[in-house]
């Protein structure tokens, strides 16, 4: 049995299955983060006082992290483009850089969390820190998930390249769409939590 349109796009929709699937999944992710951002708005408007993000958080570290994530989105696209050009070695390089950038982001985030805990600032301290830890924690889980998937495609998953290059490139495209989404969430999180 062969399921149609796993590799080639269906003519009337112009999409292969996994690409449509990831877009639908991302729609549900938008609703998830949308619900959490709405919660943030509701909690903040209902609060008697609300701290400015920079009172608690390190804006410079977050700026660094923003640059790291944006950079990783660029390398992610480059890795897919390399596959489309048939250059597997370059794919490996760019995908490796993407994973390292993800790792870098998590390490910086870890330092940030550690600094908070050192000053006895926990999710239970106040509503601002509660929403900060929840939102960035959930985002961190998404980064971690993306790193695991990317790591698989960098390592064992890349064997598919030799058998079915078209399908492998499709997979990287889909993984890339997810990665860009995770990046985009951070682009919203950064100003919301650190700058406002």
């Amino acid at each position: 049995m062969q399921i149609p349109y796993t590799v080639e796009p269906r003519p009337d929709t112009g999409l292969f299955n996994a690409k449509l699937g990831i877009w639908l999944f991302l729609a549900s992710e938008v609703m998830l983060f949308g619900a959490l951002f709405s919660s943030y708005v509701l909690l903040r408007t209902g609060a008697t006082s609300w701290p400015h993000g920079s009172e608690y958080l390190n804006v410079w570290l977050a700026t660094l992290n923003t640059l790291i994530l944006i950079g990783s989105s660029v390398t992610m696209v480059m890795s897919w483009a390399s596959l489309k050009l048939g250059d597997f070695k370059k794919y490996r390089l760019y995908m490796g850089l993407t994973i390292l950038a993800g790792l870098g982001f998590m390490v910086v985030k870890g330092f940030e969390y550690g600094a908070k805990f050192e000053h006895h600032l926990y999710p239970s301290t106040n509503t601002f820190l509660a929403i900060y830890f929840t939102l960035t924690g959930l985002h961190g889980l998404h980064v971690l998930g993306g790193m695991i998937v990317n790591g698989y495609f960098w390592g064992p998953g890349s064997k598919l390249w030799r058998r079915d290059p078209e399908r492998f490139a499709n997979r990287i495209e889909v993984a890339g769409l997810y990665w860009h989404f995770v990046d985009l969430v951070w682009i919203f999180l950064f100003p919301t939590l650190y700058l406002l």
Partner: protein
Amino acid sequence: MSALVEERGGHAHDAAHHDEPGFWRKYVFSQDHKVIGIQYGFTALTFLLFGFTLMMMMRWQLAYPGKPLPLIGGLLGEGQASGGIMLPEFYNQLGAMHGTIMVFMGIVPLAVGAFGNFVVPLQIGAPDMAFPKLNMASYWFYFVGGVTMLASFFAPGGAANSGWTSYPPLADIATAGQTWWLVGMLFLIFSSLLGATNFLVTIIQLRAPGLTWFRLPFFVWAQFVTSFLLLLAFPALQAAAILQFMDRVAGTSFFLPEGLVVSGKALEVAGGGSPLLWQHLFWFLAHPEVYVLILPAFGIVAEIIANNTRKPLFGYRSMVYALIFVGFMSFIVWSHHMFLTGMGTAISTFFQTTTMIISIPSVIILSALFLSLWGGSIRFNTPMLFALAFLPMFGIGGLTGLPLGLAAADIHLHDTYYVIGHFHYVVAPGTIFAMFAGIYYWFPKVTGKKMNELLGKIHFWPSFLFINGVFMPMFWQGLAGVSRRLYDGGQQYAHAQDVLWLNEVMSVSAWCLGLAQIPFVVNFFWSMAKGKRVADNHWQATTLEWAAAPSPPIPHGNFAQVPTVVRGPYEYSVPEAPAAFLTQNGDAAEEAA
């Protein structure tokens, strides 16, 4: 089939299936949508029975408060039923878990996971779902979530006991079972997200050649809209569950306001949260969820009515447009569950207006189904009886909802038994009857055998009688002002005294309803083993699952060759046609000609 298998030899690693699957891969970790559908069906029916049993226990306490439960009272243990008498804490657990089990582990997995999984790929002429591995994962997430929920009965303090809606602050400070509830719910949500994505991609991408959107059977449309609701509404509960989880485990105060005093002691939390936030997030899911419960039922009933009246559906296109409109509107009515929270008259006015508007497409669909009966020579077989009973039962459920959607009337009716009667009419004699109709209708497709008609009728008539005996008196009690969630059924309230006798009527009806399911269980297993073999197209239906696939369909691939669709879904009794019914793939017409 074997030729196809050889062809894709090079892709063996990625292909969904091995050639000769062993027992585990064939029946347990199967990636075949038909097996997964059956797994969903068995699991969901088991949960439904379990959830119903919880309610039958509660009904004893309501009818005979303070008397020891017969038969099982002694088995429950002192923590649940002291001397066989149900404790209030245990009653609350049963209530919360009855709702949770029925909605999230019973009906939705049966309607979408079982019927959708088995029927949709067959009806659209697809070899399987678009993502068979995700399909399998979806079932196992559901299974783990369900087991987590059940296991919570053994947590310290028992299962969740803050109602199926888990309103904070109560749920935030409840016993450990609530945390289990949240974890179980997250698993169920992952399951439904994977499932919904899979259904949407399958329906959009894998329709057979010639199967255009307006040639889709109504059941497929219903599953399509349902999947969108699951995909976009469930994340709100996911967010809410994460926040409540943080409140309970990390000590945050998302849903806890300042200055909260519990049992005479100030709660040691930062405060600053909003209990209303939970209600908004919860109902943003739970109202679309109501339509998740009912739309697949519409789909099943539509298939069976068209088939057994031997006529096209009345107003197929209007029904489809109404369906899409219901799906859209269901996202902007949620606050009609919150009229009494003090959110303000302007917001109430908006939501009661949208609520009145959403009743219109539902009425269009129901009217179209009624009108479909007109002038038909109806075959009164068991699936048709259940489908026909669905119509007035859903009608009662829907119409009694209108007073609840009006903010002024809701002040009196809110949180009374009237509400319980209303939504149970929609879901129990409504959706569950449609589920039974679907089981009787597709049983020959799944097994190649037919269920016994006599036992089917012995199942139907008492069920129909007693289910009304359970829910009709709730309207009387509710209008008299009896609140829901009362441990003693209202004994302590002066205004409830005149309607207390109804508690016994409802309870006896509920137990008789339980007995009336015995013929179904017997019929189900007996027919599976010894039922009469049937032809591939037992009901002489037009849709692809009957017309183009054998009964049961071949494993892994469904169709010997991909069917080509040449016409709409319900071409029954077409004037001057060569055959009494014209199948979607055109075979019957060719044979007759």
